[in-house]
């Protein structure tokens, strides 16, 4: 690996109305390395990468960018791609209704005599897919493959553009462990072929595993750049740089105070919404006690989200059979409003398309699932709306100039906090959290864990669905494992560990 510098960003400053997202940030990346960027939510990581890739064109920021020895001034994404810089955004940008091949060559279609050359597209797609280790039919629609594979398609798309510097903004946030590992291996492979990568991630174990150097950004400023090999960097060291102090433990100290069972689901069976005869939940039985945090472990596609959403007012799938008991009485929850009325809350894993109205502002979003609480007679009380949103902004430490700000202006992690606030405000008895810490920084994770435990201590039940096993193990009093729509095991704190969970998550009940 040679050590010459491929990229230098000098004193980059970028302001949004009312926010200085980047204040004099510098970044130096050596050719052929994997360079990680770490920082808390809203530190400015995504913004820095958008500056680099021409999303914010030259003139929109101050400072200079030197790429391969020359100062570059990108006008737009196309011009940065022409130079060999390709970005894969935090939120995937594939078109669900188009095929893999069409997505890869979108905007870049090879033509023969002015007509799209499908033969070439399909054969090149196969080649590119082989390079990223994806075996699918190139004509498969994007919406029919899982997120993990979608991420690989994004990378294949980048490779199709003869990329020299690949930027990945939280590439593994939505992936499970094996998909993440596959992606990391792929990145290592790209490095071996001489492609430089910049990677943003909140999963510090991955960074420790793969990065050659790490630049830490805090509040729009560069704090330091660490060289993994020389500096002996570990996760605690990164955290210290990110938050400015050390975190003694990843989980707050907590003694659970568990009461009687108050929520129970029996023989829950749900069909797939569009494929007849296919079951997404197969006779599941589980219960939640007051004051208890219950984890749901499973691989991507195992049916955890489907189970949660079908219980939450049948908002997913075709209900077949099953009963729900709350506080000893059977309840029928046919719609989301009914579920909310019975004290259920569901925080979705897909905040952009299911959790948020990006046109709205923070305060309106915070109260949007419980407008009745701040309505006097007919009128929605704006003062109360503001006060409530302000409270949650403070308690969750959402980074924003004001709760009047639009949701679309928040960084990914801070958007997640607003979604959490929205559901906490419904004051639920049973809070179902689907990947609650996706894209959230370590410090904020600690806070969110604390909040979950506090809710449990108030006698509520909390269900946590997570693909991060350490998180489930640290947080849950009891864990259910799901495999292909069926509950395959139930482990109490103490019995559960990575191996036992993994075995139950990948095996059917018989072999468990």
């Amino acid at each position: 690996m040679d050590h010459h510098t491929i990229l230098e960003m000098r004193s980059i400053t970028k302001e949004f109305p009312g926010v200085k997202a980047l204040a004099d940030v510098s970044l130096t990346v050596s050719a052929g390395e994997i360079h990680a960027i770490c920082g808390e939510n809203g530190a400015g990581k995504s913004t820095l990468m958008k500056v680099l890739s021409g999303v914010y064109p030259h003139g929109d920021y101050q400072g200079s960018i030197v790429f391969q020895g020359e100062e570059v001034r990108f006008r737009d994404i196309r011009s940065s791609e022409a130079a060999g810089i390709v970005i894969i955004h935090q939120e995937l940008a594939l078109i669900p209704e188009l095929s893999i091949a069409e997505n890869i060559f979108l905007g870049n279609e090879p033509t023969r005599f002015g007509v799209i050359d499908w033969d070439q597209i399909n054969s090149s797609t196969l080649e590119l897919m082989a390079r990223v280790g994806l075996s699918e039919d190139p004509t498969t629609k994007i919406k029919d493959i899982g997120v993990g594979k979608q991420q690989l398609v994004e990378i294949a798309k980048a490779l199709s553009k003869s990329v020299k510097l690949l930027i990945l903004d939280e590439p593994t946030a939505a992936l499970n462990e094996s998909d993440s590992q596959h992606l990391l291996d792929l990145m290592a492979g790209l490095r071996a072929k001489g492609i430089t990568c910049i990677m943003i991630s909140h999963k510090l174990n991955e960074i420790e595993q793969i990065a050659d150097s790490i630049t830490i950004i805090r509040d729009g400023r560069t704090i330091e750049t660490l060289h993994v090999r020389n500096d002996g960097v570990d996760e605690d060291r990164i955290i210290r740089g990110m938050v400015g102090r050390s975190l003694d433990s990843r989980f707050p100290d907590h003694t659970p105070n568990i009461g009687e069972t108050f929520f129970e689901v029996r023989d829950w069976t749900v069909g797939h919404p569009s494929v007849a005869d296919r079951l997404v939940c197969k006779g599941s039985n589980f219960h939640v006690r007051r004051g208890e945090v219950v984890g749901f472990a499973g691989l991507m596609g195992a049916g955890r989200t489907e189970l949660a959403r079908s219980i939450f007012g049948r908002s997913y799938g075709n209900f077949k059979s099953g009963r729900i008991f709350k506080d000893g009485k059977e309840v029928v929850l046919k719609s989301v409003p009914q579920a909310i009325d019975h004290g259920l809350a569901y925080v979705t894993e897909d905040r952009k398309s299911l959790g948020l109205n990006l046109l709205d502002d923070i305060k309106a979003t915070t109260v949007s699932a419980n407008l009745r609480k701040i309505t006097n007679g007919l009128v929605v009380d704006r003062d109360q709306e503001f006060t409530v949103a302000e409270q949650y902004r403070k308690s969750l430490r959402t980074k924003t100039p004001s709760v009047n700000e639009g949701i679309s202006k928040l960084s990914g992690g801070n958007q997640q906090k607003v979604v959490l606030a929205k559901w906490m405000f419904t004051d639920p008895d049973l809070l179902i959290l689907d990947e609650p810490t996706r894209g959230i920084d370590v410090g904020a994770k600690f806070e969110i864990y604390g909040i979950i435990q506090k809710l449990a201590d108030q006698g509520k039940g909390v269900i946590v669905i997570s693909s991060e096993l350490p998180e489930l193990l640290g947080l849950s009093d009891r864990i259910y494992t799901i495999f292909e729509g069926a509950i395959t095991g139930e482990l109490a704190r103490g019995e559960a560990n990575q191996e036992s969970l993994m075995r139950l998550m990948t095996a059917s009940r018989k072999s468990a």
Partner: protein
Amino acid sequence: MNSLKKLFGGNTRQFGMIFALIALVVFFQWQTGGKTLTSANMMNLFNGNSYILILAIGMVLVIIAGHIDLSVGSIAAFAGIVVAITIRDWGIPWYLGIVVGLLLGALIGAWQGFWVAYVGIPAFIVTLAGMLLFRGANQFVGKSNTVPVPREFQYIGSGYLPEVGPATGYNNLTLLLGFFLVGVVIYNELKLRRRLQRVGAETTEAWVSVLKLVLVSAAILYATYLFATGRPGTSFPVPGLILGVLVIIYGFISNKTITGRHVYAVGGNRHAAELSGVKSKRVNFLVMMNMSILAALAGMIFVGRSTASGPFDGVGWELDAIAAVFIGGAAVTGGVGTVVGSIIGGLVMAVLNNGLQLLGIGADMTQIIKGLVLLIAVAFDVYNKSQGKPSITGLLTRNFGNRPRSGPPAAAQQPAPAEQGVGTKGIISHDV
């Protein structure tokens, strides 16, 4: 400039829209040699446009929810003819005629709402069908004839506030209305200041409020003067009064009630709204139904003004109403827009129309100019948004409703910019 900013709540943009309207009025007043701001012309303006503005109120809600309604002109015509015929043939009194018209509107709205909300057919298609359907129904029922309505019925389309009380030389009710409005404006400003103080937000200096109140009150009183001193027998027009009441009611609903919030939520992100407990089908049903009721009302007002219902009433109204809404800052993709903004958008078009007419400019040029104004107003908006600046029309009209909403997601979020762009794709593909 700084003081201007202060005057309009620290936001210069807020006032751009009204400013455009005032500038237009002043321009035409000057160009027509004072013929614009006369009693007769102002009454004309209100009488001749109130039905479009009423449609715009319904249309903005439909558009915020992410739909469109092309059938309003046909529904207006159908309701008009049915009412005219029932009054003539069944001999029912005029007020029952109005009830019949509104019920018919509700029925038609339920029909269209059913297809849109519960069957899931795009409103573009449903209302395109409705446009043909109800135009045909109008001509079928009326045998393509013109049917006159009685004098009392004409009151809702061309009536004026009556003369009551002592002879002051002015129309007393109009005066009262003007004074009442001034009172409301002052009261609201005081309430706002108190509210801001209570929440601990920064309040503007007192002189700013005073100046603002003086300007607004002067405008209201001047308008009152114009309306109260027209030809004998004229005063503030009844259609204008109906419009005013509707603006207040719908402004209130869209801004301050749960139902209003739900309309914005469904238009902004339907799935997220549903998972927050919003009954999106019901919301869609209600906005479509409401639109048809208002269309029926607009149709009846028009019939009242033109003294008879005809086979070509309401042709092209949907386009005027939609134009008003988009000039008023709404987004084709839904989730954004305000009632007051749409009214101002409609007034801009109305003043333009009226002024060009007074100047003796032909219908051909008038259409060309109106088309360009629509295009440029929205282009300006889109340009501003793509620059990451908040939308001019959107932002400033939003603030009328006191409902500051953010702009669209920064164009930068996605490689394809200008997602807020105006195009038919949004209309057709939305919400299938």
